[in-house]
């Protein structure tokens, strides 16, 4: 019995790992244009952020606006480690994951007993508190920011940007496989019940507080891990840009637009929106770019709340009914 479910989950992890590795080898061998890896890093980063956000927001129904509290903290965690010792980036990602996971746990413990609305507002508060703490912390540069030197090459991986891209691709694999495993498991059913009706879920035996804490911890940890390589990518890190609200809007918009009910939605949303933005930033101003994201978010929430997945599903259902 246990073996059956674990087998199926294990199979997805294995298959998706192979896909990820193939994708990695293919892109690195075939693509010479360096810019591709710069852009792809950002898109993959959003795949992780959107997937992580969706574990809490889509599956459990608790909206997190304070992505900065996890993502930027993850980045600054790396800064601290970078200044203290020379630590390989994967280790930084692990540390960032742990730190952000603890923040998620703590924040959840403080606010998850309240209505979802208060939780959302509290996440915003957490982000501002985190930002204020970092702005006033000179060791990591404070409001002036900090310069990080990006090495030219990484051991075994060659070009450093391709190395970061590879790490982010692997992290995307972890995030996606985790999300899918949750979806098909008892945990996912519990999350779903909480989202649909928390009081009924509690009455049905679901330990709602514990599950919500798991969601916030996991979601926070993944976001933190996504932020860990950021200092090496941008080479100049400051609170204003790392806590930028654009990360928050994108992390919300991508799952909403892609569809929140399945792991595929955030991936679709991230790839679609992320790619469009990467292309658009070159041609139009970044402010206009963000305006479009915001308008798309509003539009989808009103017209197509189940996102692209929802649209496809209802078209399929309509066709099936005919």
């Amino acid at each position, binding site marked *: *019995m246990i073996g059956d479910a674990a087998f199926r989950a294990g199979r997805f992890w294995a298959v998706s790992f192979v896909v990820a590795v193939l994708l990695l080898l293919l892109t690195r061998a075939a693509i010479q244009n360096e810019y591709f890896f710069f852009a792809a890093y950002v898109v993959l980063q959003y795949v992780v952020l959107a997937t992580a956000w969706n574990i809490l927001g889509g599956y459990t129904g608790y909206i997190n606006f304070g992505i900065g509290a996890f993502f930027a903290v993850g980045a600054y965690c790396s800064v601290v480690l970078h200044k203290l010792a020379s630590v390989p980036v994967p280790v930084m990602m692990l540390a960032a994951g742990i730190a952000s996971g603890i923040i998620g746990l703590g924040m959840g413990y403080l606010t998850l007993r309240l209505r979802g609305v208060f939780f959302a507002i509290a996440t915003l508060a957490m982000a501002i508190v985190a930002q204020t703490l970092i702005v006033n912390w000179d060791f990591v540069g404070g409001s002036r920011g900090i310069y990080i030197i990006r090495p030219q090459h990484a051991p075994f991986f060659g070009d450093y940007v391709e190395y970061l891209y590879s790490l982010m691709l692997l992290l995307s694999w972890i995030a996606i496989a985790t999300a899918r495993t949750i979806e098909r498991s*008892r945990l996912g059913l*519990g999350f779903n019940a909480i989202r649909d009706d928390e009081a*009924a879920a509690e*009455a*049905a035996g679901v330990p709602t507080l514990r599950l919500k804490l798991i969601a916030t911890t996991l979601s926070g940890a993944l976001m933190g891990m996504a932020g860990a390589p950021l200092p090496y990518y941008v080479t100049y890190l400051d609170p204003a840009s790392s806590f930028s609200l654009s990360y928050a809007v994108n992390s919300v918009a991508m799952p909403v637009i892609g569809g929140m009910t399945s792991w595929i939605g955030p991936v679709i949303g991230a790839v679609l929106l992320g790619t469009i933005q990467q292309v658009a930033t070159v041609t139009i101003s970044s402010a206009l770019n963000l305006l479009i994201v915001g308008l798309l978010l509003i539009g989808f929430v009103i017209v197509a709340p189940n996102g692209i997945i929802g649209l496809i599903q209802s078209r399929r259902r309509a066709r099936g009914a005919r």
Partner: protein
Amino acid sequence: MRAPAALLSADGVSKHFGGFVALEGIDLDILPGERLGLIGPNGSGKSTLVNCLCGTLRHDSGMITFAGRKLDGLPAHQRTRLGLARSFQLPKPFRSLSLADNLRVPLLYAVNARPGARLSRAAVAARAAELLADVGLADKRHRLPRELTQVEMRKLELARAVASAPRLLFADEAMAGLSPSEVEEILAVLFRLNAGGITIVLIEHIMRAVMNFSTRLVVLVAGRKIADGAPEEAMRNPEVERAYLGE
């Protein structure tokens, strides 16, 4: 003098919201196997009492014991695991889950969380189908709750409560707004469940159903228990008459 065989004992349970006293010193023993009717005018505290006993609300004072265990401070999901179940006044189905999946939630989280044999994946699915068949919803088990009629929703609500394999079930106004024949359907389900060994507390306004169903009647008025005994006796109590015929 407390009956030692009481399944659930409420001892001086009180609950207030700000200045408003919803429950005042409720003493109640629920005996195993009985069919207890809980009635009272609107706002008398019936649902509040159920919420306090089931853990949805925290009572302010008093003690609640279930099968010898103190329930005070235990969250609702743990009380469910101990064997308390309730259906909600306004049905609260899991809207995005099929009927079968609605039942899988308590099966996986209440039944499988108890020490002892855990149901396998196949056994869970079979049990869910069985429970739905018991209330006549077998053919709709892959549908979503929004496709159900009123009475079917009530049945789903009851089926979900029963899925957690309770010893005690609170049926909170499970028949409100139903036609007489639909009321009979629900009553039949409740009788069947009781015959199968589940103690049932029926909170209801439909007097005919309550009198028909209950072996004992408890009457709440303005947060206090004013009658507790055989149905005919309780109804003849002058205070109860006054509460229902108006003052």
